[in-house]
């Protein structure tokens, strides 16, 4: 317990320095600014803004990136509420009731409760990370290559189960993702794989390039198909602070959302995505009058938004303790850490305690800043959202091109975002969801490395994965999940959760 407080105070000592406060503020601000653009989710925003953190020291850079992440997420919710265009999967749910509230002239209250709920969730999640961080790092010590491999398999199975639409297509996407990650020089033997003899492919495909193409460029192409179906609220924003009645209606939802989101966020395999859906379903089940949902029920904004933010934060846990990025955003964080010479994993906490605890403390600071900057600036975001899309997308496109060029100064990277943009667009058109592919790509290299090591240790016997108890347990969980997802009755329930 004493450790808990001394660690947190060390963290706050780092996060509250004037420079880091400034960086957190700037991160939140630009993150919201880009994230508020329709069709630009947190992944594209972070990939775009990654270069602006290059010149900073590692602690400052990660604090700013975390700020950008929260800002982008809150910006996405703002767009979902005001324009009914969710920037990413997790704000789909917010758009349901949030946009209806906006049409009833209660946009301000919706934005207000989203910010307050997120802040509460963020505070709880920060404490959860601080409390679980140290014990989970110890867990990492008993993990060998076989356990790591099985954990990642479980993560990928989660991603399959959580993906929308056909399970077969989700599995195919995971396999394609892992396959893409094997492009480039084989680390063990030094032989080039699937590079077509092109020198810029010998380092493999850059994750930021893939993410930017699939989530930035493809999204622009897709939005161009549904021309200007935007539905901006022309009503007044109304008062921002929820009143007593609103609080009474929503405080329980905020607490439930926080709990659901925190737990799901820790799961590998993008569990954070499920948080808002689960929270919405729970709120609807518990409500006295479920018909209010979809017509501007404040609980339908408060719960999912809290779950979303809690999950966004607790998804740092697998990354910081085990070194496994549980979703695409965390994979970008890995990229940023690597650029600054930090290898994510259990050793971060012991070797760079300043960085580890400073980042955790700055998560709370970032949440507070969002509350402080966003509420007064809502008017500005509304004005930004009134810019027609025909002017917005060329700007988005140029930001993407400049952003990706500045990471490695390679024109080929820019061409590759075009290629992956096209691939992403075709995937959407063929009914494949790109998110599992990205996760497969993220985990692919780590998986191959650990598979090889495990097999060398076991002298080529695949039985090692079942003989080691922790590994066997993880694989069993994965198998049960997969079987459950394939059962017809559960499948129906899963479809219901996602179509709501």
């Amino acid at each position, binding site marked *: 317990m004493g450790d808990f407080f001394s660690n947190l105070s060390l963290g706050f000592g780092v996060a509250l320095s004037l420079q880091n406060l400034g960086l957190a503020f700037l991160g939140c601000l630009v993150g919201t600014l880009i994230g508020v653009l329709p069709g630009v989710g947190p992944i594209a925003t972070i990939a775009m803004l990654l*270069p602006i953190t290059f010149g900073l020291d590692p602690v400052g850079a990660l604090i700013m990136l975390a700020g950008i992440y929260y800002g982008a997420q809150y910006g996405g919710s703002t767009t979902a509420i005001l324009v009914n265009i969710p920037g990413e999967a997790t704000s789909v749910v917010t758009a349901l009731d949030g946009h209806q509230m906006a049409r009833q002239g209660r946009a301000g209250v919706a934005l207000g409760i989203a910010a307050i709920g997120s802040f509460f969730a963020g505070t709880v999640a920060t404490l959860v990370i601080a409390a679980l961080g140290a014990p989970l790092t110890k867990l990492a010590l008993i993990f060998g290559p076989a356990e790591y491999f099985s954990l990642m398999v479980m993560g990928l199975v989660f991603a399959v189960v959580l993906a929308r639409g056909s399970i077969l297509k989700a599995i195919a996407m995971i396999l394609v993702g892992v396959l893409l990650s094997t492009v480039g020089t084989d680390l063990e033997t030094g032989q080039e794989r699937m590079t*077509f003899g092109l020198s810029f492919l010998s380092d493999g495909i850059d994750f930021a390039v893939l993410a930017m193409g699939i989530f930035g460029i493809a999204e622009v192409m897709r939005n*161009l198909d549904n021309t200007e179906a935007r539905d901006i609220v022309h009503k007044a924003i109304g008062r921002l602070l929820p009143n007593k009645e609103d609080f009474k209606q929503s405080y329980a939802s905020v607490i439930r959302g926080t709990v659901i989101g925190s737990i799901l966020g820790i799961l590998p395999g993008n569990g954070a995505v499920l948080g808002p859906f689960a929270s919405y379903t729970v709120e609807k089940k518990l409500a006295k009058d479920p018909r209010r949902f979809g017509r501007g029920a404040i609980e339908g904004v408060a719960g999912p938004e809290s779950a979303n933010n809690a999950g966004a934060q607790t998804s740092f846990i697998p990354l910081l303790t085990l070194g496994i990025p549980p979703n695409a955003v965390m994979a970008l964080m890995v990229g940023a850490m690597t650029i600054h010479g930090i290898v994510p994993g259990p050793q971060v906490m012991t070797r760079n305690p300043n960085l580890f605890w400073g980042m955790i403390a700055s998560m709370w600071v970032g949440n507070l800043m969002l509350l402080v900057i966003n509420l007064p600036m809502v008017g500005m975001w509304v004005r930004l959202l009134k810019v027609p899309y025909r002017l917005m997308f060329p700007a988005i496109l140029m930001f993407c091109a400049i952003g990706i060029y500045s990471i490695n100064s390679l*024109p080929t990277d820019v061409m590759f975002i075009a290629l992956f943009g096209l691939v992403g667009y075709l995937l959407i058109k063929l009914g494949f969801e790109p998110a599992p592919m990205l996760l497969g790509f993220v985990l692919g290299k780590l998986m191959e490395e650990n598979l090889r090591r495990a097999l060398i240790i076991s002298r080529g016997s695949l039985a090692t994965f079942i003989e080691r108890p922790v590994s066997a347990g993880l694989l069993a969980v994965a198998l049960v999940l997969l079987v459950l997802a394939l059962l017809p009755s559960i499948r129906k329930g899963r479809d219901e959760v996602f179509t709501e």
Partner: protein
Amino acid sequence: MPTSHERSSPERRWSIRAPQNFAGGISLIALAALALWLMSDLPRGTLRSMGPAMLPDWLAIGVGLAGLALVASSFKPGEALERWSLRGVFFILLAIVGFAVTIRPFALGPIAIPGLGLAVAGPLAIIVSGFATPEARLRELVILALGLTPFCMLLFGDLLNLPIPIFPQSLTGLFPADWSQKAVLRATAALMIVGAAAVFFLGRGHKADQVDVAVQGGRG
């Protein structure tokens, strides 16, 4: 371009009734075949010491099997292919590739493009991509391009010091030799902003002459 297949009549049992799954399955099989072909000259090794090709080959086989399953499932009723717009995709790809080849000196076989820097590549990307929508208006795009590019130049080149080429190399002689890189950058940015303002105010007078591009562009 709109590729929505007709739903086949129920009596034709062996026709494709889920074109989306069929096309998806075929693409997966093609991808798997490509990967297997590319990996064909690399050793697989044994489980005890895995070669470079072992995992990719397994994965490619998995992808191919998923593709086969999808093709098989396309004989059951399913979703049709969505319509897509070639116009949007074409202009956006063109704009990005245009940016990539003009930002730095680029040579591919007989084609060689001198490095034109952000001052040219930025506006080019904005204006070309703008035409991805049939509602494009040239004057608007020019103002946007001339207004946004200097902002990015100042942000990335001046404030953040990122090594991004700003200015066409051949034109550096136009500025006094004792000007620093940053001074040139700022002068160019200022010039572009003045240009944007000029287009904005001059264009206001004779709006009637404006060619409305929207009239020509059909829906993709």
